[in-house]
């Protein structure tokens, strides 16, 4: 499904990694590992098409993602370091907009269900300003529930989350993989999904 061949990336003039090869098929979970500055975030951003690789190719269903363009974006969801939520809006509004940006038309019922699943019952209409860091991260993660994209690309999804939320994330990823989804993520915290063997990719 997702194939990476001979990929090389650089930031500025500095070569981060080269000759990276891996592929990911339905139901697989891949954890990207490496020290700070080894290019984990750059790899994920390259997979999203933000950065142009110095060399190599990224193929989705056999086609280069550069050529696929918007068709690829319809099948993936990316969660970066930043939550991409607005302080001025409440959780419900935020989520409705981010689902719209991801190309999905959702109704309030679905959004509220997603927020409740993320443990934000009763916080749906509060301005995001008053929520804690962890709660904001939960709002951002709720986007995963509203999308039917098979490919999840998650950059440090567990930052600021408490134990309960980490458990919830493991559950969500497990469900996604059972539904033939694919997940690529980076983390500094252990994340174990029951019944799935995590694959590792080490960047040096």
């Amino acid at each position: 499904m997702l194939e990476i061949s001979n990929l090389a990336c650089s930031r500025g003039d500095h070569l981060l990694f080269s000759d990276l090869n891996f592929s990911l098929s339905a139901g697989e979970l891949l954890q990207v590992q490496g020290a700070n500055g080894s290019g984990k975030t750059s790899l994920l951003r390259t997979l999203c098409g933000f950065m142009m690789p110095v060399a190599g190719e990224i193929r989705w269903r056999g086609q280069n993602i550069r050529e696929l363009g918007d068709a690829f974006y319809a099948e993936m969801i990316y969660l970066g370091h930043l939550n991409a939520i607005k302080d001025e809006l409440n959780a419900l509004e935020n989520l409705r907009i981010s689902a719209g940006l991801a190309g999905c038309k959702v109704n309030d019922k679905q959004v509220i269900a997603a927020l409740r699943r993320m443990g934000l019952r009763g916080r749906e209409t509060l301005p995001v300003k008053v929520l804690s860091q962890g709660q904001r991260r939960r709002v951002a993660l709720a986007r995963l529930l509203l999308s039917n994209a098979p490919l999840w690309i998650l950059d440090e999804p567990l930052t600021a989350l408490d134990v309960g939320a980490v458990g919830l994330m493991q559950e969500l990823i497990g469900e996604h993989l059972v539904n033939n989804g694919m997940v690529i993520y980076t983390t500094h915290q252990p994340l174990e999904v029951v019944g799935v063997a995590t694959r590792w990719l080490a960047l040096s």
Partner: protein
Amino acid sequence: MNKLSLIGLLSLVIRRDLVLAMRRRADVLTTLVFFVMVVSLFPLGVGPEMDMLRKMAPGVVWVAALLASMLSLGRMFSADYLDGTLEQMMLVPQSLSVLVLAKILAHWMVSGLPLVIMAPVLGLQFDMSAQALWVLIAALLLGTPILSMIGAVGAALTLGLRGGGALVSLLVLPLCIPVLVFGAGAVEAVVSGTSVSSHLSLLGALLVMALAFTPWVTALALRISME
């Protein structure tokens, strides 16, 4: 789950930006107050002779509108850039150009349209005739969207750079000269009794051209700047 159409995306983004602007009213008002102040300060600088003021009015209003629109350009993408929303916008599966167009339109409604509405009041300060005021409104209606569109390209190119505000003016102001010339020229034409329609139709042509190209160019600039 249903797919969102292009029109759906357009209206979603416009509504979102308008709601955000309403919740940050102070920013919007600052631009408008700046515009009013600049125009009102001119007579204090050059003296109160009505003949001269009447002659200067279109130029003054247009230059002030140009400066005010420069002032608001920083807001167009930077907040979304800082909180990561812009990253999500780049991944929009419909079309980034349409999304950019929506952001430009919203920006114009928030920062250009108030200027158009305010301009006749300021025109009265300069003793402009009713006919000249109407032409001023028409010219501003055609011209200020172009300023927002050209400005969007500049704002996208200077995304996240230090000294972005001054830099964006340096890049964008020279490109806005045709708008200034035809916009102020239209009002002068009605005062001097020559044809207004040629000026307005040239402005209209510029608007159509900007509408056709700038969303796409801005999308390209955003992709360059996000790398």
